[in-house]
């Protein structure tokens, strides 16, 4: 059976109407996907428990592209076909690329098209298509984890992205088959993750030091909306530069002369990265690296030495902060909070420098690598409508459930009570009889299972349903309650689009006392209602069977059945009619199985006769084509 998630009070989704939404941090170095499950926004890991997806795509001739860790591992061996940091190329025209081309290991296609394409052994691809591969991998992970298809996503982009770069990101999502609810600025997403959107108005700084890029943004929160006052940073400054700083220290201290070997460079950087990470919690770490043939070099590295080595990088981040504040015409004292984003902000020296500069402790409670994706997931959850009590201004609830009458005088709830408005919920129904061309829709209110015990709000008819077999038509009934509590009900036959609708004001004339009485009644009658529902459901089943079998007998009974066979079916049918008139659920259920058994042979013969009719007069070759 489907696995269920815990919902907020009153927010359990209708079956098959769970609205799955996710937040995507489409990063330069790494990307993540996050979603709200069981009331908590969290990033979604892959099968190996890894949350990050390296933003690396490798194209191979004759194969589908590889995305993520395995592509990253191959990037050193196959640089021309492995695209890294594609985000830097998003929305860039041929002219922009010419400037970057010397720094990139890729070959660009010569063409008239304004969109530059990277030539790989599997063909030429634009930055949009490469990004789409990353998004597809995240989409697959999200859909597998959440157990359904994603209805919408929020994708984050840097605050400085221009319209072209934003449009390119949207196009990539379209190529990946994702519906973009909204593009969200990365610093805003981080602020939302920390819940700053629900705090006092004021100015906030988001300090985002990633693997290869540094962004600082100054935001102003005004009436629940974040406005970007200024952005700054350095597109080639990040945690990787700290790794290079440590690698340089290893080269100097060990006296290594020749570092032209690529494998050695890789080993140096890997050891440097490991040393950087362990210095987050420890004051000293032992650096071990194989230099030269089999020679292992070991030397302790203290945090003090590390800090000294990265100090020029730290100062560059602070210079960018100073400039951004100046652009926003603010002093450090005007900043309410500083949010830390990006893996490199785990480095203690960075936190200390930011603390000293802004004169306040920066916010670091949420994993800095995941915080942007988490904020995007929170926003997606609100936009898809799973959390109407969050950002919606009007907070009103429906006092009693709204439903529709179904066969047998039963109520099918469409909108449960205590749902916040505005709200729209739809459900599909079908026809009960062959050739049925109209349907009467009875709108009711209340908590009871029986129409007779509920309050009738309105009735209307949907006409013009094309004649079809019972159960083949699809009638979509939509209940919509607007912010003023006005209910409109629409019934639409989905094939032809024939529709009919009505408006009612459901709470009209109901006092609180009446509502309370209706609620209490439903609890007191719970057991009776359950029994009545079971009985009515069986009766509906019985009627359907009697009708269907009656029609079949009228058509084929005389030709396919002997007199005695016919008599035994008639007897079973008569027994069912009698049981149908009584009020024993089991008796009706048994009588239905009895009719099923008595008519099984008849049904089989009808099937055979039908096939014979279909094949009659056809040659063998014609039949094969069927």
């Amino acid at each position, binding site marked *: *059976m*489907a*696995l269920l*998630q815990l919902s907020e009070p009153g927010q*359990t989704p209708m*079956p098959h109407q769970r609205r799955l939404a996710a937040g995507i941090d489409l990063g330069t170095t790494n990307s993540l996907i996050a979603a709200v499950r069981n009331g908590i926004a969290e990033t979604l890991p892959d099968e190996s428990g890894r949350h990050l997806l390296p933003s690396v795509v490798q194209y191979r001739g004759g194969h589908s592209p590889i995305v993520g860790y395995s592509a990253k591992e191959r990037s050193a061996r196959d640089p021309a076909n492995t695209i890294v940091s594609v985000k830097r190329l998003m929305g860039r025209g041929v002219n922009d690329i010419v400037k970057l081309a010397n720094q990139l290991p890729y070959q660009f296609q010569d063409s008239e098209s304004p969109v530059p394409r990277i030539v790989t052994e599997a063909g030429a691809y634009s930055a949009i298509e490469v990004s789409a591969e990353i998004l597809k991998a995240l989409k697959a992970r999200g859909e597998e984890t959440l157990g359904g298809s994603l209805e919408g996503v929020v994708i984050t982009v840097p605050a400085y992205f221009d319209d072209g770069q934003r449009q390119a990101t949207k196009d990539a999502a379209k190529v990946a088959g994702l519906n973009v609810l909204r593009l969200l600025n990365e610093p805003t997403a981080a602020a939302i993750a920390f819940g700053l959107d629900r705090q006092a108005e004021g100015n906030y700084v988001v300090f985002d030091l990633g693997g290869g890029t540094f962004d600082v943004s100054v935001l102003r929160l005004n009436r629940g909306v974040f406005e970007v006052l200024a952005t700054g940073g350095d597109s080639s400054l990040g945690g990787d530069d700290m790794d290079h700083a440590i690698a340089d220290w290893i080269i100097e201290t060990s006296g290594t002369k020749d570092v032209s070997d690529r494998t050695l460079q890789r080993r140096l950087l890997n050891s440097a990265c490991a040393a950087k990470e362990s210095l987050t919690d420890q004051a000293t770490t032992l650096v071990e690296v194989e230099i030269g043939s089999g020679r292992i070099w070991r030397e302790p590295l203290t945090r003090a030495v590390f800090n000294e080595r990265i100090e020029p990088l730290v100062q560059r981040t602070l210079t960018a902060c100073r400039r951004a504040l100046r652009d926003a015409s603010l002093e450090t004292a005007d900043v309410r909070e500083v949010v830390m984003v990006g893996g490199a902000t785990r480095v203690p020296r960075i936190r200390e420098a930011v603390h000293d500069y802004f004169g306040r402790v920066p916010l670091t409670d949420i994993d800095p690598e995941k915080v942007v994706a988490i904020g995007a997931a929170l926003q997606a959850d609100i936009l898809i409508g799973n959390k109407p009590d969050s950002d919606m201004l009007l907070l009103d609830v429906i006092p009693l459930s709204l439903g529709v009458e179904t066969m047998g005088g039963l109520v099918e*709830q469409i909108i*449960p009570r205590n749902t916040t408005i505005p709200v729209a919920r739809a*459900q599909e129904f079908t026809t009960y009889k062959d050739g049925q061309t109209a349907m009467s829709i009875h709108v009711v209110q209340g908590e009871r299972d029986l129409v007779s015990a509920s309050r009738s709000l309105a009735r209307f008819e949907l006409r013009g349903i094309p004649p079809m077999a019972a159960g083949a038509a699809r009638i979509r009934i939509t209940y919509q309650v607007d912010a003023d509590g006005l209910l409109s009900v629409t019934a639409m036959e989905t094939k032809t689009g024939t529709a009919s609708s009505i408006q009612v004001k459901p709470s009209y004339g109901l006092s609180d006392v009446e509502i309370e009485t209706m609620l209490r009644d439903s609890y007191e009658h*719970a057991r009776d209602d359950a029994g009545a529902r079971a009985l009515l459901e069986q009766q509906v089943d019985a009627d359907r069977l009697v009708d269907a079998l009656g029609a079949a007998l009228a058509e084929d009974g005389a030709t396919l059945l002997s007199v005695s066979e016919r008599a035994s079916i008639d007897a079973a049918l008569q027994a069912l009619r009698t049981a149908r008139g009584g009020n024993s659920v089991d008796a009706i259920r048994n009588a239905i199985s009895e009719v099923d058994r008595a008519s099984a042979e008849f049904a089989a013969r009808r099937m055979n006769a039908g096939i014979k009719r279909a094949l009659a007069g056809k040659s063998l070759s014609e039949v094969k084509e069927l």
Partner: protein
Amino acid sequence: MSITLTDRAADRVKSFLTKRGKGIGVRLGVRSSGCSGLAYVLEFVDDVDSHDQIFEDHGVKIIVDPKSLVYLDGTELDFAREGLNEGFKFNNPNVKNMCGCGESFTV
């Protein structure tokens, strides 16, 4: 009348309640809907209604309204993992038929 939780389900509920930062327990319920009659409700609880019945198992409060209890008596709530997907499962002895997707059922 009883409603219970497996160890795994209890651990998850407790951790979700802690992370959420508020709430006194979980609400189990049913409502009429779906392709096969009734559908499950599984929610955090902030306020208990005066009509509600409260059960306690593994230190977790389980809140059920009297109307739903008729359909849920004897149910055990479990937490399961299927590939990357994970979530709660109702082991409900009252269920006779389930729709293919398992989101709704009849008793």
